């Protein structure tokens, strides 16, 4: 009993903090209450729920050899210290997602997002990561597609692979769109990000020929270069010669990114991708740690209300009400399907003992949820007027400070044109109006927090561009790495139809697959950039739906595996989150398709515009008949995409149901695990 006492106290502190966050009205709540509530909930969940799953649901067996022991090769399969592996896994799962989603969700107030992140990660997100890691770990570290094929059949595996590829395309488009939104008309930001390309190439040359393998050394040199780029970026931006050269419109930036993606993904990896990944990984970890420390030191009050009027729908940042759209807007951080690909990637091949799995699988995801909580705090400590000025589309609030102040004040968040102009000056930008996508908002918040700790108001512009650079850097790395991964996924899919295309020896299929992959995300990026409604509010929900559907697929696999292990009585552990995700994604997908509200439903929106087009009328925000046509076309493509995702998830539901029923009829486990007693590996497939 005594050993439970500290945990009881932790739980109590968490419950009290949560109560303070939930019930305070009128006076500003300190952000630390949210942080403390989250940390306490996570600790208690880890101590009790993760260990319950480990002991009773999975029955982890420390004496059972992991892939790292069975197949040890010193390269891919290496038994790794658990703290070292925790860092590896966390760095692989934490990206831009947990930073962006919560910022967008703050339009409904800080309370819904906080509760969903805490509840979602404990019962769904961390469970998913942990289960997939467990399943892969017992099957020689195979990937998600192979696992689904093994346990649910060939067809299910292929459908899942196709779904994963489409999700990859949407993710890349959305991430690239965020970069466009952050760098458009911002010569300072553009210069610093552009400077990372030659900088990374110099680093690449250094690690290739001068001092091979000296990652620490070259990263420090790179960091110095980055800081210099931020410092000199201000002078460049203000220079009458250089400033205009680094000022781009969103459409120009879109084409630059597409060209960049196409070229970067066929360059040798050591030249650009690897060295920039060193910078972005270490900067990401450093910035996350600094943000945590900064929030604790500053202890800022939350200025966003706990709940805004937009919780019932009609918000400018994304359309639709709290249910189901909050639960797809905050995907990463609460539950992210993409993690299923990581948890069945390199991590299961490195795990030294089954008893390390709770820390890696469940623990690292709790850490990511903590990052999401910090992003939510960041968005909520800003003046709500500034928040809505930055995140509403120009179609709603116009493009100058006076119209924006007027429109945002009319939403119920009083702000003056002077405050808007002053905020833009403080962070060294021409304008902060309609900088949707989450990254610029978070950068303003980080500038606020960091300048409070180091440098004071004079440093705000530096910290703002530091934050933009840090986000753009790892988004660009993800675009580059994602295009390469997408290429192989596509080649695998094409090889199913034409086996010759799967050969990676030949150059041509690879180049064709790369081109198709870039064209696919480039299409959605261009659509988002030219979308008169702003793009983010169209594409982010599609991304959220697809990512949560992948999570539902991973959890359905976990459910099927539990049934096949004859552990049905514990299947609720995965069935509950699966059911919730299916309810959210299917109803969100349904609304996105068929809602009669043109702000929500793609088809209703398209129908409204095509009807107007037939009458030869222009509807706001379109400025020409051509724009009208484009809006109608985009709506139909988006609708088709959502329909595809719905079809993927519904068909996998059928496969899961069949698998579970077949396992129930069988008196013995039918699972395809590697038996515990099989110590020596089967021959490695070439």
């Amino acid at each position, binding site marked *: 009993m005594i050993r439970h006492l500290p945990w009881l106290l932790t739980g109590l502190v968490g419950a009290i903090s949560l109560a303070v966050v939930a019930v305070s009205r009128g006076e500003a709540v300190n952000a630390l209450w949210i942080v403390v509530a989250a940390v306490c909930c996570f600790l208690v969940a880890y101590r009790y729920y993760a260990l319950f799953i480990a002991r009773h649901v999975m029955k982890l067996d420390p004496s059972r050899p992991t892939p790292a022991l069975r197949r040890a090769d*010193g390269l891919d399969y290496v038994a790794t210290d658990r703290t070292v592996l925790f860092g590896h896994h966390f760095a692989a799962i934490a990206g831009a997602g947990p930073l962006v989603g919560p910022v967008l969700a703050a339009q409904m107030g800080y309370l819904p997002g906080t509760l969903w992140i805490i509840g979602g990660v404990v019962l769904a997100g961390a469970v998913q990561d942990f289960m997939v890691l467990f399943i892969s770990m017992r099957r020689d570290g195979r990937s998600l597609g192979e696992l689904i094929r093994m346990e649910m059949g060939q067809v299910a595996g292929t459908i899942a692979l196709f779904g994963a590829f489409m999700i990859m395309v949407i993710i890349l488009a959305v991430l690239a769109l965020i970069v466009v939104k952050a760098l458009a008309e911002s010569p300072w930001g553009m210069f610093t990000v552009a400077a990372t390309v030659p900088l990374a190439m110099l680093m690449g040359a250094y690690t290739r020929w001068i001092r091979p393998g000296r990652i620490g050394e070259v990263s420090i040199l790179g960091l110095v270069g980055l800081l210099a780029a931020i410092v000199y970026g201000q002078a460049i931006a203000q220079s009458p010669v250089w400033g205009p050269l680094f000022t781009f419109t969103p459409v120009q930036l879109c084409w630059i990114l597409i060209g960049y993606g196409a070229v970067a993904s066929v360059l040798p990896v050591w030249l650009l991708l690897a060295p920039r990944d060193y910078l972005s990984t270490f900067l990401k970890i450093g910035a996350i740690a600094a943000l945590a420390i900064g929030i604790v030191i500053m202890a800022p009050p939350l200025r966003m209300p706990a709940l805004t009027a937009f919780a019932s729908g009609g918000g400018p940042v994304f359309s639709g009400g709290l249910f189901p759209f909050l639960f797809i807007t905050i995907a990463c951080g609460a539950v992210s399907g993409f993690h299923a690909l990581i948890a069945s990637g390199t991590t299961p091949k490195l795990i030294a003992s089954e008893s390390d799995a709770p820390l890696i699988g469940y623990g690292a995801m709790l850490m990511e949820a903590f990052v999401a909580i910090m992003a939510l705090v960041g968005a909520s400590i800003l003046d709500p007027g500034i928040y809505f000025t930055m995140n509403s589309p120009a179609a709603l609030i116009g493009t100058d400070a006076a119209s924006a102040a007027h429109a945002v004040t009319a939403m119920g968040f009083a702000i003056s044109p002077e405050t808007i102009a002053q905020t833009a000056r403080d962070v060294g930008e021409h304008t902060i109006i309609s900088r949707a996508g989450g990254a610029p908002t978070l950068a303003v918040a980080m500038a606020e927090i960091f300048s409070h700790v180091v440098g004071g108001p004079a440093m705000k512009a530096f910290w703002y561009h530091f934050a933009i650079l840090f986000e753009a850097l790892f988004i660009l790395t993800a675009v580059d790495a994602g295009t390469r991964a997408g290429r192989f996924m596509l080649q695998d899919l094409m090889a199913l139809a034409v086996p010759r295309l799967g050969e990676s020896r030949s150059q041509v299929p690879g180049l064709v697959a790369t081109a198709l992959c870039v064209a696919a995300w480039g299409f959605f990026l261009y659509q988002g950039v030219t979308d008169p409604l702003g793009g983010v509010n169209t594409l982010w929900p599609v991304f959220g739906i697809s990512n949560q559907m992948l999570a539902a697929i991973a959890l359905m696999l976990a459910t099927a595996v539990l049934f096949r292990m004859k552990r049905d009585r514990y299947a609720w552990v995965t069935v509950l989150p699966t059911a919730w995700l299916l309810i959210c994604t299917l109803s969100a997908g349904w609304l996105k398709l068929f809602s009669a509200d043109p702000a929500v439903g793609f088809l209703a929106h398209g129908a409204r515009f095509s009807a107007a087009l037939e009458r030869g009328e222009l509807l706001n925000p379109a400025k020409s008949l051509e724009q009208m046509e484009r809006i109608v076309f985009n709506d139909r493509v988006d609708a088709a995409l959502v329909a595809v995702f719905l079809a993927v998830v519904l068909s996998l539901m059928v496969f899961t149901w069949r698998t579970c029923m077949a396992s129930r009829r069988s008196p013995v486990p039918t699972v395809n695990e590697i038996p515990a007693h099989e110590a020596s590996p089967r021959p490695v497939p070439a």
Partner: protein
Amino acid sequence: MSGLIQTLRRTARLMVGLPDYDDYVRHMAAHHPDRPVMDRKAFFRDRQEARYGGKNGGRCC
């Protein structure tokens, strides 16, 4: 203290996909004394290609 620095170093290197070289050499010596062992440079290049070549499923959003 040196243990902590060692762990941090290893963590940072594994974050970017570089496992421990000494572990690799020990593994080769123990299990495959007959096979050639990559030197540090070749090992670094091999791991770089393995991580970034694209077959590892990429990075997270």
